[in-house]
């Protein structure tokens, strides 16, 4: 028996090693503490990074120095995605994908080629999915002096078209960025910034209600402006009167959703939230996305009510919300976002990337359809009218104004999450403006401009 125990311990160990190397191996390599990256840079010519149109964002010149795009605006716009050569931004491609650019994944055949020609080893070139022009435009239209993030996804191909975090930094002038660490320019807010989602979270609550509560068609709730839960009142800006669930969604009625959350209970709402990726360890191959958190410890009914409208202890990243919007757009199936378009080896061949996932269903297609209708109405006649596009493009969206502080003078975080429903422009967007004010007023126009630009660019 002792032997059996030992054999199983060995098997467990082997399995654990496989598991952890499979899921975390890439992260370990791209860790900024890995001395192999710095030592690799000395012996290997690092490959270049280009955007989806082929614009070179970072490259190594003849002297072995790392250079970036000549245009400062471009440098700034993609600074978070590309990162810096010193590894200060650990989530940037310069560090996170260094294993390709330094040729760690080169096979022995390629090395024989190098040895035959006598050239020094050169790493792979990476082409990112982000568009430098779109990113630059977003930097221009983003509210002046505000912090925040914008993510644009193509929900058909799951490519990240733009990932901009404000404020930005210049990789050629790291001293400035480092001197002003308070500004937090080195953090990619799109993937690492954890914010309360506010009303945007109602997409999740609504999905849970549609899946779990019977006869919602006959549902009607009389909003009087406040709803007592336990010892607190969940308040609303104004009394919306009697309305259906969709109307409540369109008007972003807090009291209705607080009431629904009490019907749902913490278990069912928590289950839906976790299906949507809350509390989940995102192990995406192309980028590091911090874990969103949703409280499932059933603290009190008040806590549940606050959670259901995205306040309290619910925290999420703009990238995650963009993924949820993309999931609604693609009929309830969530996909892993892609940041690398392709990798070209030094010899000109292309390296095989891990195959893209099949996606995982986060809600039934019918539920996604209903939510889409509600989101379209939100942009048409609800809180998100300022995100509407002309020319026959139908935008579905949801605004959010998440209170970040108990202090009433501090402006709320402005959210807008949405996508274009048209097949010829499958773009999903998530805009977050830190302390920007109301989502409909501040974030929605940014989203509209961004989507319009994406259509114009024809990405």
């Amino acid at each position, binding site marked *: 028996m002792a032997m059996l125990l030992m054999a199983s311990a060995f098997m467990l160990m082997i399995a654990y090693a496989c598991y952890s190397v499979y899921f975390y191996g890439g992260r370990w390599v791209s860790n900024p503490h890995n001395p192999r990256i710095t030592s690799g840079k000395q012996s290997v010519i690092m490959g270049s990074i280009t955007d989806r149109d082929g614009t070179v964002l970072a490259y190594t010149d003849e002297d072995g120095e790392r250079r970036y795009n000549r245009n400062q605006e471009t440098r700034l716009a993609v600074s978070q995605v590309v990162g810096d050569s010193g590894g200060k931004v650990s989530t940037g491609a310069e560090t996170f994908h260094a294993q390709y650019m330094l040729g760690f994944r080169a096979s*022995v055949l390629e*090395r*024989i080629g*190098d*040895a035959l020609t*006598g050239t*020094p*080893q050169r790493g792979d070139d990476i082409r990112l999915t982000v568009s430098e022009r779109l990113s630059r435009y977003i930097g221009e239209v983003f509210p002046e002096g505000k912090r925040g993030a914008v993510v644009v996804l193509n929900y058909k191909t799951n490519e990240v078209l733009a990932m901009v975090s404000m404020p930005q930094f210049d990789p050629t002038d790291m001293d400035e960025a480092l001197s002003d660490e308070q500004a937090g320019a080195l953090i990619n807010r799109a993937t690492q910034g954890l914010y309360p989602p506010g009303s945007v979270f109602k997409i999740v609550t609504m999905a849970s209600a549609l899946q779990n509560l019977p006869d919602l068609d006959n549902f009607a709730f009389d909003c009087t402006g406040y709803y007592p839960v336990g010892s607190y009142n969940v308040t609303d800006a104004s009394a919306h009167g009697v309305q259906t669930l969709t109307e409540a969604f369109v008007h972003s009625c807090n009291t209705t959703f607080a009431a629904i959350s009490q019907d749902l209970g913490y278990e069912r709402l928590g289950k839906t939230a976790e299906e949507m990726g809350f509390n989940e360890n995102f192990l995406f191959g192309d980028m590091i996305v911090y874990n969103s958190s949703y409280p499932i410890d059933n603290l009190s009914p008040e806590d549940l009510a606050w959670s259901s409208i995205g306040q309290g202890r619910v925290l999420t990243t703009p990238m995650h919300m963009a993924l949820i919007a993309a999931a609604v757009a693609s009929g309830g199936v969530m996909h892993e976002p892609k940041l690398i378009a392709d990798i070209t080896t030094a010899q000109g061949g292309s390296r095989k990337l891990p195959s893209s996932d099949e996606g995982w269903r986060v809600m039934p297609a019918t539920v996604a359809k209903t939510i889409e209708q509600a989101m379209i109405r939100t942009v048409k006649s609800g809180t998100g009218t300022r995100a509407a596009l002309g020319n026959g493009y139908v935008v579905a969206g949801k605004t959010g104004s998440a209170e970040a502080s108990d202090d009433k003078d501090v402006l709320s975080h402005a959210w807008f999450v949405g996508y274009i429903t048209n097949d010829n422009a499958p773009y999903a967007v998530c805009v977050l403006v830190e302390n920007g004010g109301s989502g409909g007023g501040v974030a929605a126009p940014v989203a509209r401009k961004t989507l319009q630009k994406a259509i114009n660019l024809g990405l």
Partner: protein
Amino acid sequence: MTQAWYQVLSMSFGYLGACIIALIVLLSARKVLSDSALWRRVKKGTPQSGAAGVLRVISAGNRRLPAGTEISVPYEGTMGASHSCDMCIPYRRVHMRSAFFWVEPGQLHIVPLHKDGFLVDDVPMGPGDEAVLRGGTILRVGDLKMALELDTRTESHLPAEPYVTSARRTKAQQGRGEGIGAPGKGEMRREKKREEKREKEQTKKGGKPLKKERARR
């Protein structure tokens, strides 16, 4: 040799090493299996392997132990009425876990753990004694008589005759020893009753009546 060529060589050595070690693992697994198969074949060919000899029942104790039954004696282990014992003697007078024993060249050492009245060539043994048995020794408890036959392989020239530790032997000579191993009067009575009951049931069923078992004294 240039650095690049060294890198190529060392990387190919990595692939070669993986192949070598995979082969080694496979080969060793096959070797272990084939060796186990050889071992099993050898064991099939030698019915007595793993056993040092047999205890042959000479006079029957009960129906489960008719005369001629052979109880194989392993090299060491426990002896008792329980099936979990290495040497199982399913007889009512034998305790579930009666003794432990081991075999040394030509001799079987038994150390009883209970008073179940074993006689080694008519010398009783009690708990804690060490009895040394040679091939041919008669082991008796109640009506059950068993002769020990040890393998010729395990025989040697060492001990002259079987013994039960010296203290025990003096007791036996003084005539006091007999009582110690024997069951008490109450126990005898209870056992008699049990036997009668069983016999009645047996006759009711219409089966053959059991041969009445004589008490030892």
